[in-house]
């Protein structure tokens, strides 16, 4: 059974169809790539899965359970974390606070969050992750003072903080320098080897082709191809979508 299953997902904005009947499954431990030209509906797909947008039709199932139309916070608490194409962090909080914020709502009750002050375990985990990502030295800095690359890493770290079962990465490498790209790719592969499941939207073809064993291609809101990197690269429909005729 797929861990995350998307069936006939559709999203309209007025008369514009951003997604039409897209279906795909994500297996546990997989590293699935989603590619497609600009405006093909990739981010809309993420938004519909994570509850940021409400789909117009279709279904999203997570661990066999229907989660279609749940609010974003409820989806997150079930174990689906994500990053954003445009970095989304809490700018006035410190790096460490950003990390703790990403973990605190995952489990427990509302009242428990008021009464339980102890946070040593989470702080240790956050510090460990920040060290792993190489930004532990700025952990007490305000997040807005970080460089773009560091913020990108923080956004990524926040997605790891709640120990999610699936992580959706929306263009994690865009605007990142080559050294950092190698770092991030290394981190993603290492975490995937530990059992983390990833779905990645990425424009850097070289990286997607080397990172993912399976790739889904979207174009104009529709799924036009799926397969191994080699299969997708040879698919005439894909070439057509990217380069036109």
């Amino acid at each position, binding site marked *: 059974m797929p861990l995350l299953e998307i069936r006939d997902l559709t999203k309209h904005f007025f008369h514009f169809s951003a997604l039409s009947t897209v279906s795909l499954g994500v297996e546990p431990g997989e590293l699935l790539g989603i590619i497609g030209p600009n405006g093909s509906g990739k981010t809309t797909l993420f938004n519909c899965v994570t509850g940021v947008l409400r789909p117009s039709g279709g279904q999203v199932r997570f661990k066999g359970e229907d989660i279609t139309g749940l609010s974003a916070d409820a989806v*997150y608490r079930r174990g689906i974390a994500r990053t954003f194409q445009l970095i989304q962090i809490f700018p006035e*909080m410190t790096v460490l606070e950003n990390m703790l914020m990403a973990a605190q709502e995952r489990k427990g009750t509302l009242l428990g969050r008021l009464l339980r002050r102890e946070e040593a375990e989470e702080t240790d985990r956050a510090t460990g992750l920040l060290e792993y990502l190489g930004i532990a030295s700025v952990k007490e800095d305000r997040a807005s003072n970080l460089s773009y690359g560091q913020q990108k890493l923080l956004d990524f770290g926040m997605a790891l903080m709640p120990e999610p079962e699936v992580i959706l990465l929306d263009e994690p490498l865009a605007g990142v320098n080559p050294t950092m790209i190698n770092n991030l790719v290394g981190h993603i592969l290492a975490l995937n080897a530990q059992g983390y499941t990833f779905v990645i939207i990425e424009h850097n073809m070289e990286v997607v082709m080397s990172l993912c064993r399976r790739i889904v291609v979207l174009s104009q809101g529709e799924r036009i191809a799926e397969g191994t990197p080699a299969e997708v690269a040879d698919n005439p429909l894909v070439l057509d979508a990217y380069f036109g005729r």
Partner: protein
Amino acid sequence: MRRLLPLGALVLGALLPLAFEQYKLYVASLTLVYLILAIGLNLTLGYAGQISLGHAAFMALGSYAVAILGQRGLPFEVGLAVGAALGFFWGLVVGFPALKVKHHYLAMVTLGFNIIVFLVLRNWESLTGGSFGISEIARPAWGPISFKSDRAYYLYMLGWAAVVVTSAYWILTSRWGRAFRAIRENEMRAEVVGVSLRNYKLMAFAIGAAYAGIGGALFAPLLSYIDPGAYTLDRSIQFLMMVVMGGLGRFEGPFIGAVLVTVLPEILRASEGLYLIIYALAVILMMLFMPKGLVALWDRALGN
């Protein structure tokens, strides 16, 4: 040391008015009431980012609870507890629109609430005394210990202010405080780290309003007389000014704001007719050059 110094100054500053003459002591007492209200509004607006122009209405709930229950022979503390509970409840109710609307729309909703409460107070004469208000509101007494004198009542209020300050500090340094800030800083991201906007926005409103209820309860016996005129929109805007001028979302903000908004007009009164103009100018200049509030001066002095 850096933590103890402001705390020591605070305790000293709080006890100083006991040496004041009657009118100055009254102004200091009023400052305590405003401090409690500003702390509540700072939680709702400064931390959670939810605007409320109805804080005077929540204050009225506390004042009238004390006055009406006092008439029926119940102790002051019962009135205060009821006032806080009413504030909490109506804070929840007014918080619901905050789940749908934001910013100036929310300002309009809370402003509407303020006007409704004002009209109810003025027109429900059998309960509230209408425009005539309620007089002879008794100050609290614990058996033989009475807080009747101005000094004793100031000390009594100081006790409640300490409770409010401590509990607010405790809430705002908890995971709730962090979630409030998350909503203010990036609402969409907050939701995508699992923050239930509904729960936290409602709590931010309800707690802020409960503090307003406590402040209102303490206000009623100060002059031993209340009428609806004390709880108009003007008053709500005054609280907004305290929080903004002190420094939104900063724990020190309400202390600075409450003192400033209460004391500054008193000092300027010496200039007679000009004082409102000078006061208004001071507010405008402050907002132009210190949009982060006076707390920014404090930060600069400490060099961070």
